[in-house]
């Protein structure tokens, strides 16, 4: 029964009769309301018998049951007899049920032994390495199949994904690119002004954006935005047994789900990186013109002199790799997800962490490689 706003309170009164304590219960007992305290009721009396009676009891629920259970526990401790014979049979039955329900335990073994944990971790790592190799191999084979028979490729899915991870990411990538360009120009201006070399802000912003910050920041944004979305989508599909359905139809989920995403993000990342480069350079120009009073034309010419095609190509090569890494990490973690809400959450986190880690490793490798090649 819904609690009406003006409910009568639970009532409990006690009086002693010889060595017995007569307890009278009445009113409305609701679990969401406070109930009388048994300890206050019994106070300092030490009865050998407690008799419970009901008077004008209106509604009751587990609140009354818990009170009676408290009385019963007190009686056991105080070695007093409890007379509940005047209680309705249903209440006595529930009192019996709550008494019987306590202290039962079906053992659950979650204990972990150190050696077992280490052993399991090693096996787990080995299994993951195999999974990653298998996944990368499958993706390579799928790409070969795509090259051989482009008509079977899911172009429509790919274009949808391109819109999601490319066009829809333009505002955030643009904003971050512009702000990075502004920040770089401010930082460089502080130092270069000391030497009267203000104009070289254009060189600094141009080179850093095109070679490093443009591809890297785009990669990080896409790892958080698109990589996470890939993992969550595929993880949810796995939890909903959609991947099993592909499997039982003999349809390769790699071809159907992974490849369109992988192609989309690998194609879109360099384009977004170029867009970020452009806005970063514009950000630098704003600072140069506003703070350092460098004419925009001078900034532009200086920037063009500093940045050549090889810088641009190196940035594009990097961003293609970054796109592939983000796509692979997102899809792999999605496919590895446990079939639960928590599993999907973990897969998403793992996709972002893996992608960012691999981006930085790949960036370091490219730095060494380009240095060796003199690019």
């Amino acid at each position, binding site marked *: 029964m*819904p609690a009406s706003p003006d409910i009568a309170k639970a009532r409990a009164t006690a009086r002693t009769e010889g060595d017995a304590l007569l307890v009278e219960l009445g009113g409305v007992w609701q679990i969401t309301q*406070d109930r009388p305290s048994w300890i206050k009721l019994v106070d300092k009396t030490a009865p050998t018998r407690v008799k419970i009676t009901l008077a004008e*009891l209106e509604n*009751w629920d*587990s609140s009354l049951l818990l009170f009676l259970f408290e009385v019963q526990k007190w009686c056991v401790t105080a070695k007093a007899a409890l007379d509940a014979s005047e209680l309705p049979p*249903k209440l006595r039955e529930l009192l019996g049920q709550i008494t019987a329900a306590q202290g039962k335990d*079906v053992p*659950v073994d979650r204990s972990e032994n150190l050696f077992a944990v280490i052993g399991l971790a090693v096996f787990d790592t080995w299994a993951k390495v195999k999974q990653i190799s298998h996944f990368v191999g499958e993706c390579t084979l799928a790409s070969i199949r795509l090259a051989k028979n482009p008509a079977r490729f899911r172009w429509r899915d790919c274009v949808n994904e391109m819109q999601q991870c490319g066009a829809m990411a333009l505002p955030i990538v643009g904003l971050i690119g512009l702000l990075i360009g502004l920040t770089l120009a401010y930082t460089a201006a502080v130092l270069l002004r000391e030497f009267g070399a203000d104009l070289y802000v254009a060189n600094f912003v141009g080179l850093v954006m095109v070679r490093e910050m443009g591809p890297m920041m785009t990669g990080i944004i896409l790892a958080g935005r698109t990589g996470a979305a890939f993992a969550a989508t595929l993880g949810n599909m796995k939890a909903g047994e959609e991947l099993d359905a592909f499997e039982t139809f003999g349809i390769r989920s790699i071809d159907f789900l992974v490849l369109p995403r992988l192609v989309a993000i690998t194609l879109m990342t360099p384009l977004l990186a170029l867009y970020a480069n452009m806005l970063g350079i514009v950000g630098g120009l704003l600072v140069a013109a506003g703070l350092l009073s460098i004419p925009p034309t001078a900034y532009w010419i200086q920037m063009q002199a500093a940045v050549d095609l090889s810088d641009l190509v190196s940035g594009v090569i990097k961003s293609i790799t970054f796109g592939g890494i983000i796509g692979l990490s997102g899809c792999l973690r999605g496919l590895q997800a446990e079939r639960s809400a928590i599993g999907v959450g973990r897969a998403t986190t793992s996709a972002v962490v893996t992608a960012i880690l691999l981006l930085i490793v790949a960036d370091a490798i490219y730095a060494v490689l380009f240095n060796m090649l003199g690019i």
Partner: protein
Amino acid sequence: MTQPSPSPIQPAIAVDDLECGYEGRVLLQHVTFTVQPGELFFVIGGSGCGKSTLLKHMIGLQRPTAGTIRYFGESFTHAAPTRRRELLRTFGVLYQNSALWSSLTLRENITLPLEEYTPLSKSERNELAALRLAQVSLSGYEDYYPSEISGGMKKRAALARALALDPAIVFFDEPSAGLDPITSRKLDELVLQIRATLGTTMIIVSHELDSIFSIADRVIMLEREAKGIIAEGNPRDLAQNSADPRVTEFLHRRAMLPV
């Protein structure tokens, strides 16, 4: 668990000329029925007839486009937000996929609403959780996580959680979904047992004929084309005496195939 029943006796649920729909589409209309306290009431019908939609309106997940739902004489549809939340607390809902909180143990699943809405101490909450689990024959499984128990046990644990706050009414959404016939029958027995002990009013959305015939006091049958109730009464009476072929065909498990 509200005994003895207060007088005057009001129907536990009174649905009056309810119309449900969204985005300008009417799914159900002119839905009127009452459920008496302690009744085991089934909402039945084929797929897509609006059973789950009706349930969602009754538990406040969706708002009707017209009509009223009253609980014990008090309008739920037109209640002020605070009162509406108070009324919601007096319902228990058993969801189709159990919907146990996966990061909490069974004990925590039951004690969380108690912690939120009652002044009970931790030990009392645990005592009550033990009782609820015992009532659904899951004694001793307090420390298990939902992922560590079977589908049938999850359903029972979800029922224990639905009973946590001593609800006056418990709603069941397709309780037999995903359960084998034996487990499903055990769940039916449990429903009867809990009704006998606690006197709870139960509204069950189902198309499981075995359950309907074995435990339902009364049913309403919804139909997609009619967008509303096409029959109301005891399922056995309806199966034998209904003049509506849609009702008899459903209750006799005959598919409506073109001749």
